[in-house]
């Protein structure tokens, strides 16, 4: 963009160009400030979302309603019941028949059933006492976590029971797992960096696409083109306010995550800011490109939603693992800037300045930036001829 400016014959000085940009900038800033909807999307939505993410959303089940079927109460079954009651993961309802438990599950009052059969005690001494665990499988991810919690509670009970024996009941191989970067398994650690991606995408791509499409739709951009202002200057003047809004959103989200939810920032703040600025440039570029191609607010809004925001949720690796997606769909993710930004943010926040991640991901975004702005500049000019 800069070279675009200097390559042109210098029929007016560099100083005047700065003045023109300032004037445009002022006009745009006023427009942003006077329209509450831009402020709402760039600053209020982030606050709302981060509070929701911080206090409300979690993939870790707790207080799972569970029906415990004790067909014949005995001291042993009371021990098992105790293990489930003591677990902070479950809220146990004890019933005496399987039929009652099935009813509860069908009414949607419990999400799982644990059943100790009538002859549990007797068979325990033979070493083949079954415990039946049935979970509501509709939400498969949750169901799988509940299953492993139930196994954990059973294992704990067994461990206590066998404490006096030297034999370890859990079986010869014991897995000692460690979760690097997030020892406590806190899902906020990956939700907060992911949220920043969503907010930057909204401000950068969606907002810019709408604003510019409106100018095209109303013909005010053509009116600007006949003034001495150059294409490059218009693009800078138009996008800079949204760039600033996006960076303000970043500051807001990152500091809330850091200070309210104690998400660590293990990399440097400078690098975080730099890669975020780079991503925001790419997002702004996409917004401009979409508006230039569609030239209609209705279509631009829809396209920006479909091409930038929704993929940032589903195809960026923010929530869902990209390695498990079929190859054809994974290929699409490579042309999405959000993919690289998610990887960068997760690394900079949780792992630190790891150059083997930072350099290739930044390079990919840089290439995208150049392609997107090159095409936008060309398209913008071509339309005028």
């Amino acid at each position, binding site marked *: 963009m800069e070279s675009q400016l200097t390559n042109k014959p210098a029929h007016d000085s560099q100083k005047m160009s700065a003045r023109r940009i300032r004037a445009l900038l002022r006009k745009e800033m006023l427009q942003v400030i006077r329209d509450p909807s831009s402020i709402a999307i760039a600053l*209020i939505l982030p606050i709302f979302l981060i509070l929701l993410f911080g206090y409300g959303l979690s993939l*870790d089940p707790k207080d799972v309603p569970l029906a415990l079927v004790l067909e014949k109460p005995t001291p042993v079954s009371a021990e098992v019941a105790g293990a489930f009651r003591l677990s902070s993961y479950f809220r146990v309802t004890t019933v005496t028949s399987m039929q009652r438990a099935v009813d509860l599950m069908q009414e949607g009052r419990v999400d799982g059933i644990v059943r100790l059969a009538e002859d549990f005690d007797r068979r325990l001494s033979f070493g083949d006492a079954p415990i039946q665990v049935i979970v509501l499988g509709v939400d*498969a991810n949750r169901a*799988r976590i509940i299953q492993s919690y139930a196994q954990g509670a059973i294992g704990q009970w067994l461990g206590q029971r066998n404490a006096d024996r030297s034999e370890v009941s859990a079986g010869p191989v014991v897995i000692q797992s460690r979760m690097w970067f*997030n020892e406590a398994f806190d899902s906020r650690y990956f939700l907060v960096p992911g949220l920043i991606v969503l907010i930057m995408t909204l401000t950068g791509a*969606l907002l810019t696409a709408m604003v510019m499409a409106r100018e095209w739709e109303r013909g005010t951009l053509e009116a600007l083109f006949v003034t001495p202002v150059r294409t490059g200057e218009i693009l800078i003047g138009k996008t800079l306010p949204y760039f600033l809004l996006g960076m303000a959103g970043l500051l807001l989200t990152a500091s809330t995550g850091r200070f309210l939810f104690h998400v660590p920032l293990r990399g440097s703040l400078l690098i975080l800011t730099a890669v975020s600025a780079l991503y925001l440039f790419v997002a702004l570029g996409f917004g401009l490109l979409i508006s230039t191609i569609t030239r209609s607010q209705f279509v631009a809004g829809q396209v920006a939603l479909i091409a930038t925001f929704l993929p940032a949720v589903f*195809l960026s690796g923010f929530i869902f693992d990209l390695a498990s997606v079929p190859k054809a769909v994974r290929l*699409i993710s490579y042309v999405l800037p959000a993919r690289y930004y998610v990887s960068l943010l997760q690394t900079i926040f949780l792992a630190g300045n*790891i150059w083997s991640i930072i350099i290739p991901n930044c390079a990919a975004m840089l290439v995208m930036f150049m392609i997107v702005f090159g095409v936008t500049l060309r398209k913008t000019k071509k339309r005028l001829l």
Partner: protein
Amino acid sequence: MDSLRRIVALIWKELLAILKDPRSRFVVLVPPLLQGLIFGYAATYDLNSVRYAVYDQDKSSASRQFLAMIDGSGTFLRIANLRDQKDIASIIDGKDAILVIQIGADFERRLLAGGPADVQVIADGRNSNTAGTALNYIGTITETFNAQWKGSNGQPPPSVQPASRAWYNPNLETRWFMIPGLIGMLTLVQMIVITAMSVAREREQGTFDQLLVTPFRPIEIMIGKSVPSVLIGLVQMTMVLALAIFWFKIPFQGALSNLYLGVLLFLVAAVGIGLMVSSVAATMQQALLGSFLTIMPFAMLSGLNTPISNMPKEIQYLTLLNPLRYAITIVHKVFLEGASLRGIFPELWPIALIAVFTLSFAVWMFQRRLT
């Protein structure tokens, strides 16, 4: 009668306005299908290629047997055999692998002595959900290995064996949960945006005022604006539904009529929200951004991405106002559980209530603006 004829004419005009413009036609028809397909593949918590590295200090037949079991599961992809403790950090940091399995030098010796033989598993917690699922898989494989080892070495089997089963989704595939959920999610986004934008466009271009000076009453204009959106929503929903049943082969257990009844009520509620947004928006930009401000909380509090029962109590109460929450529950109940009309009644009436409220609020707002 006259009123009916006027409404039909307006509906026809609205449908033409969207379907005659090739770009509008495109954004209304193609994306839901494309999104259903792409996000249907992407939105899964199930892992099928977990890249992992091994640091095997034992190199015994037992450790090889254990690792072969992991390799043979079809889920794990071994990308490196490490020779040095130091390599673990760089292979995790660089995201080359998300798990490193470290087997100590005395693994086989301790196994033969009856255990415990520790295996260290280090996971990349940058996405703790993915890492947690991968660790779970390793746990399951280890249990199988333990049972086999005990069996072949004459040790007594564990005295308690939990037998797990899952209802309605026996293999616990997240896709069965996500794709039906997308029916609600995608149609909500489209309905609110299309409705809000179509009114805002008329307003911005000044044609809304022209409509107002015609013999149309405000309520007729509202009906004329809502019916086309609902029709488009039904078409979009049918496309995603067909994709779920025929492409992703998710077994449809219930009655189509129950599903369509629920979705129809939901579409009316969503259009009502779109009209509410457009009644406070002066421009298309405000309409789109306003739609967004409403869609985000609805989507986040729908229970699709994170279960509602994991949320704090106060927020759980808040979700009772969310039509998407009920719509997704209805789709899941009818689709996976085969629920009857009575089974989905607890969700049907709140949606109906929300629909009545949003529509009347929108009508009231429009009439207030006129006077």
